[in-house]
């Protein structure tokens, strides 16, 4: 009896030792948290087309109930209301509901009805009678700002949108006078976590004057509030909103023509915001031990993609957190939330709140592999021009030029590893 028992113990001890070694090794590579749990304790295991619509894991029953109530509001289709002109939806708008553009909480397609066009005069000023956004729809009896058509110009296997605006002939909306930037809705993932990253942690990655000389800067987008206070921009393609409530209010006002408190009560604004704050992000398809993950992630670092698409962030601890689980999370969004010069190819000439046409906030990469499953098609980058991850990488310029060039020199197998890793996020 004694011998087999001792043998068994040896086997178990050896297995334990191996697990410890592997565990320590992975801990060194990935840090303490498991990158498969992309949103930490808020990670959603569902990887169906409904993945992005799932409430974050880790909510208390009361928080989950509040999330469900907020979901109803987020899904609500708005209509014009009896009473004063402009009551309810509109009179001019881009979409009648949040989900019209954030289709299943994923990316909008570069089609009118799921996306919008930001504009500016060539000198950066707002366009007279139109402002900075084209509301291409209107309730009955009102006129849209302009009719928008999107055509595609293809060169060297890459396409870019050509946005045509048609409006009252008295308005000069010609290409010469007005710059235009097509914007698709970004996916709604882990936003509450991104909001809860301490400002200092974001600034650690900033290097606006490129003091380390690596060609990559990373500029915080400081937004001046009335009264002179400065807040760090985090949300939107150019980080033009410092908080999710600001972002939500701007979308309700500019995209749907809803005003508060006239059309939407403050309580409802807070609740719609809560919905976005308590969404999770999907677990990656493969574990950290998978060869695809190890090799792909290694290449991601070697190519220096991770300099801007910072893999791991952590939230602080705040008694004001809207859900307890948001506090103290390590998570894996692959963004630094900073602005970067992305080069002339992505410069559409429309500056926003001081962020010039060439500068874009590093887009988070979590959930990338589910883009097609959620939305039926893929369209990456701010205007959905990239029909594949490869195209999205090839559009990188400016500070990311060297990373893009390194990508183009990868051997086919290496390229498959990198793209395979991205596809399982």
């Amino acid at each position, binding site marked *: 009896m004694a011998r087999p028992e001792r043998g068994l113990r040896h086997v178990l001890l050896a297995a334990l030792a191996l697990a410890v070694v592997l565990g320590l090794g992975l801990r060194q590579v990935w840090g303490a948290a498991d990158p498969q749990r992309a949103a930490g304790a808020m990670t959603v295991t*569902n990887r*169906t087309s409904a993945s992005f619509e799932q409430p974050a894991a880790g909510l208390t029953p009361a928080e989950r109930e509040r999330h469900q109530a907020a979901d109803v509001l987020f899904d609500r289709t708005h209509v014009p209301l009896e009473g004063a002109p402009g009551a309810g939806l509109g009179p001019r708008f881009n979409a*009648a509901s949040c989900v019209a553009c954030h289709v299943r909480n994923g990316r909008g397609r570069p089609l009118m009805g799921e996306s919008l066009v930001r504009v500016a005069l060539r000198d950066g000023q707002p366009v007279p009678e139109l402002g900075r956004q084209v509301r291409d*729809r209107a309730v*009955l009896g009102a006129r849209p700002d302009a009719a928008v058509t999107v055509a595609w110009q293809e060169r060297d296997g890459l396409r870019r949108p050509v946005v045509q605006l048609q409006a009252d002939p008295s308005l000069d909306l010609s290409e010469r006078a007005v710059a235009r930037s097509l914007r698709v809705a970004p996916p709604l993932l882990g936003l509450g976590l991104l909001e809860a990253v301490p400002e200092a942690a974001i600034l650690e990655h900033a290097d606006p004057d490129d003091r380390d000389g690596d060609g990559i800067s990373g500029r915080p987008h400081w937004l001046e509030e009335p009264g002179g206070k400065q807040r760090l921009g985090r949300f939107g393609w150019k980080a033009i909103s410092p908080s999710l409530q600001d972002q939500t209010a701007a979308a309700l006002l500019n995209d749907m023509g809803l005003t508060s408190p006239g059309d939407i009560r403050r309580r409802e604004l807070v609740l719609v915001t809560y919905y976005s704050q308590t969404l999770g992000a999907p677990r990656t398809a493969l574990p950290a031990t998978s060869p695809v993950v190890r090799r792909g992630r290694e290449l991601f670092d070697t190519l220096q993609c991770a300099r801007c698409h910072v893999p791991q962030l952590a939230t602080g601890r705040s008694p004001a957190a809207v859900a307890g689980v948001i506090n103290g999370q390590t998570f894996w969004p692959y963004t630094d939330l900073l602005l970067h010069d992305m080069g002339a190819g992505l410069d559409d000439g429309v500056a926003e709140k001081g962020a010039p046409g060439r500068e874009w906030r590093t887009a988070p990469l979590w959930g990338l592999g589910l883009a097609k499953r959620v939305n039926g098609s893929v369209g990456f980058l701010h205007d959905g021009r990239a029909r594949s991850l490869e195209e999205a990488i090839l559009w990188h310029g400016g500070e990311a030029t060297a990373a893009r060039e390194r990508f183009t020199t990868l051997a086919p197998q290496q390229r498959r590893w990198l793209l395979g890793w991205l596809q399982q996020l």
Partner: protein
Amino acid sequence: MTRATGWSRTLALGLPLSLSLAISGCVAANRTEAPTAQAVVQTFVEKVVQPNQARLVLQTAALQAAIQRLSEEPSDAHLDAARQAWLAARRTWETSESWAFGPAETEGFDGAMDDWPVNRKDLATALGSQRIDSDSFAALSETAKGFHGIEWVLYGGRTGTPPTAAQLTPGERAYLRLAADDLHRQAAGLQTSWSGSQGFGARLSSPGEAGAAVQEMLQGVIGMLQEGGDEKLGQPLKTRDPQTLESADSGNTRADLLANVEGARQVLLATGLLELIRSKDAQLGQQIDTQTARAVDLARALPNSINDHLDNPASRQAMEDLINQLHGTATLVERSVPLVS
């Protein structure tokens, strides 16, 4: 006899138990002869979804024809026939809520056919003009078209009283024609999007995708159960506002909900999916069967026209019972997802 140590005792007790469980599991699996995930998905596409879509195309064509007759000869008999045609198509559409994923959502067919609440303001303005044509119809938002736009006119949403045929204005009759044409076009578009070798149905049931496809099927059921509880019943119960009820003008909310849960039962029973779940966890499969059947019973027990009963305590209790049932059933179905993935 030496006393067994912790390890050997665990092995001594655990191994036979594991073996017996494994063997009984095999026996159970063999006895039920569960279909494969691939077969479940194939059946779902070919025997549930596509026949439903074909029926919807036929029924929206029948609605078109009924509205055309009503328009040419505005009699109460023709108005009643148009309402019956609307109800028939409506039932088929609502049955499909559990598979309103894929193109229904990403290509906008769901919104084009079934967006609500009704844009009453624009619709009243458009119909008041008496000059509605294809251009002015095209300018209307989705919330002024589809099932609910047609319903609003057929059932007197403007006045709150169902009109007689003689009370329908020429503008309303013209609108009905255009809206029925559009509804039929959308139904045909949805059918096309799932058909053929490149269609969504073929992609869903392609080899190698079965696990993910079965998850989509279950997620479709879960989403419908949650929407039924939170939006379709939860909001009206909370606000007591009849306008927050879907199909409020026709008073068809009960029939909508009944069709919703019957559709969920079809996904589970008509495809072999429930058998597949049972083969992994017989008790859970049984619970899902029982609880979805109970949801059907509770939907059937709702008052016929909920609109008029939002303040009635017994009706409110019936709504609350169904909400709880839908939520509870969704939780059960959620538990089955990892089993069949």
